[in-house]
């Protein structure tokens, strides 16, 4: 088993919380893990990414070589497109949040971004913020992203749910339950959407 993925977003969106959940799940499986993070300057609203590598054998590089990532999980549509050269051209998936973060003057028209994402043979595009809000858990957009990506990840959903429960245990049962609900709803959505074929 070897699985490489990139989590992409904007500084301040808390993408490290997604890596932390996947890291927890990997540890319960007894896998090796390398997770490269961005701290510092870029966290101030810049483009941020996390390289996450899971394997049942020792992992060498902290960075994923280009063309190897099986998944790009993006919490923002523009950021979904920034790391494409790292995506495996034959097997890679693009899972992206529709909700734009427009903290720059030159932000493109979002519909052009959606079109670029939809041009990929394997993608899932949805609005994680809307889904989280609908389930009265507005802060759970990142958990929604994890749910949406979960059908592509090398884990049973129960393993990820256990990681969510452990991560939020400190905040009480109702927070755990609402995050689990968001996770399940997003997963269901992602499973229901048929895999599109390249145009």
């Amino acid at each position, binding site marked *: 088993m070897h699985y490489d993925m990139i989590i992409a977003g*904007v*500084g*301040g969106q808390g993408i490290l919380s997604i*890596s932390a959940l996947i*890291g927890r799940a990997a*540890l319960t499986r007894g896998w*090796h*893990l*390398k*997770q*490269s*993070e*961005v*701290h*510092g*300057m*870029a*966290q*101030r*609203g*810049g*483009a941020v990414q996390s*390289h996450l590598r899971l394997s049942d054998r020792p*992992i*060498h*590089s*902290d*960075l*994923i*070589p*280009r*063309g*190897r*990532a099986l998944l790009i999980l993006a919490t923002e549509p*523009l*950021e979904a*497109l*920034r*790391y*494409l*050269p*790292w*995506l*495996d*051209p034959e097997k*890679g998936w693009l899972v992206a949040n529709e909700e734009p973060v427009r*903290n*720059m*003057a*030159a*932000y*493109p028209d979002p519909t*052009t*971004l959606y079109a*670029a994402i939809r041009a*990929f043979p394997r993608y899932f595009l949805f609005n994680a913020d809307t889904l989280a809000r609908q389930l009265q858990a507005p802060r759970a957009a990142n958990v929604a992203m994890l749910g949406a990506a979960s059908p592509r990840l090398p884990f049973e959903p129960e393993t990820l749910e256990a990681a969510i429960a452990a991560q939020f245990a400190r905040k009480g049962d109702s927070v755990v339950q609402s995050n689990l609900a968001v996770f399940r709803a997003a997963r269901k959505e992602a499973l229901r959407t048929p895999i599109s074929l390249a145009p």
Partner: protein
Amino acid sequence: MCTQSLLLLGDEAVARAALDAGISGVYAYPGTPSTEITEYIQQDPDAIARNVHRQWCANEKTAMEEALGMSYAGKRALVCMKHVGLNVAADPFVNSAITGVGGGLVVAVADDPSMHSSQNEQDSRFYARFAYIPLLEPSTQQEAYEMVRAAFDYSEQLRLPIVVRLVTRLAHSRADVCPTPPRPENPLAPASEPSRWVLLPVHARKNWDVLTRRWPEITAASQSLPWNRFFPGPDRRLGIVAAGIAFNYLHECFPVGIPFPILKIGHYPISPTFLDTMKTAADKWLCLEEGAPFLEEQLRGPFSTPLFPIRGRLDRTLPRTGELNPDLVAKALGLNPREGPPVPRLVPPRPPSLCRRCPHADTYDFIRDVMDNYPHGRIFSDIGCYTLGALPPHNAIHTCVDMGAAITMAKGAADAGLYPSLAVIGDSTFAHSGLTGLLDAVAENSPITILILDNETTGMTGGQDSLARGRIESIVTGLGVAPDHVAVVTPLPRFRQENAQRLRAEIAYRGVSVLIARRPCIQIRKSS
């Protein structure tokens, strides 16, 4: 199989190892990518229970000196900083090799190749070599743990400080680490040899002579340490020197085994016996090292007439600047890297920017209101979130060089006749390196206007306490700025005109004035 494996950043592995090695104190000033070392110790229940010293210091120089004091007293201490912090700490750092140490003293320095969060990509290996201090360079989080554990023993054995060099990608990457059983702290045992510790020329000459004589011995003895290793390989057309994390990239390129002989480097200085091995093991060598072509230049020799052909950054087999990655290493090895789809042209860069409602943005608004009327005036700025004022929409500052340079450069420019000359400096940067420059300005009553941007935290590095907090007015007046020309303003849109007016008045005053723009960072307000 490890029974208690931990998921740690490279930085955290350093911290865990230092705690397990029995440190009694960590001394540091924040700086990406080193900050998380100290933060780990600050939050660790074990460190709290033992009451390990873990407060932030004013700057890297004070940190290095306080750690040396703890070492003098017989206890183990860790000092952490980013690479440019070593410039600030250079004086005590270099001289600590002349005094030597008592309790183990480890200096963890995190370099930032590619300047992710820095103004340069200087390589700390030059400093260690310059100071005659051994340096260890881990390739993995596990090795970071093991090296730091070993470094404290090594430091006490050699009676020298030891540098552990990290780079951003190791410092900020998490992996499973297997710790070893902790060791107790050292007892108090103050040093008592003035000839070592009083660096009068008469003593220093002797110590320096001893150090230079010991250096070849230390170099030779390092051969028996596990950190530099030769791995034979059947294909002698190419040999590869791989230092630090470059070793990982090399392995990534050959998932089923590397056919070439490899010299893995993790300890500097390097025993010359390895050079003999290199001469016989391969016809030419490729140097893979993160940062500067440090080894490569040494292998080429002073006149670039090496014993065997050397490939690397200097002949541009690899880029001369910037960090390595598995793809660059693959290319240097003549392998064909894979490539995913191209980035669509519609994707613009997203540079960092000031947060919405950041107090610095309001400060720059009123500064610009005033300074737009002085096209010949200049705004000397400094390092912190407020450096982002250089970018649109603010376009408000003219310089950013090193911590503290705002005040001193403004003074130097005023000395030259530039007017108005403004300095913009954050509260933590002011505590780090602003005070002494302000004293220079006060001593000459230089016509400069200083704005201290007091967001009550060290914003850029994630919100550490600033040592100036609650003390800025008394520091400024204590250093001799006339109280009439010290004022606190609140950077909010509704005070914009009022603040601009005050600034205009202080610019008109031909002496030192200090405006303290005080409003808490919105990030710390959010998290508290």
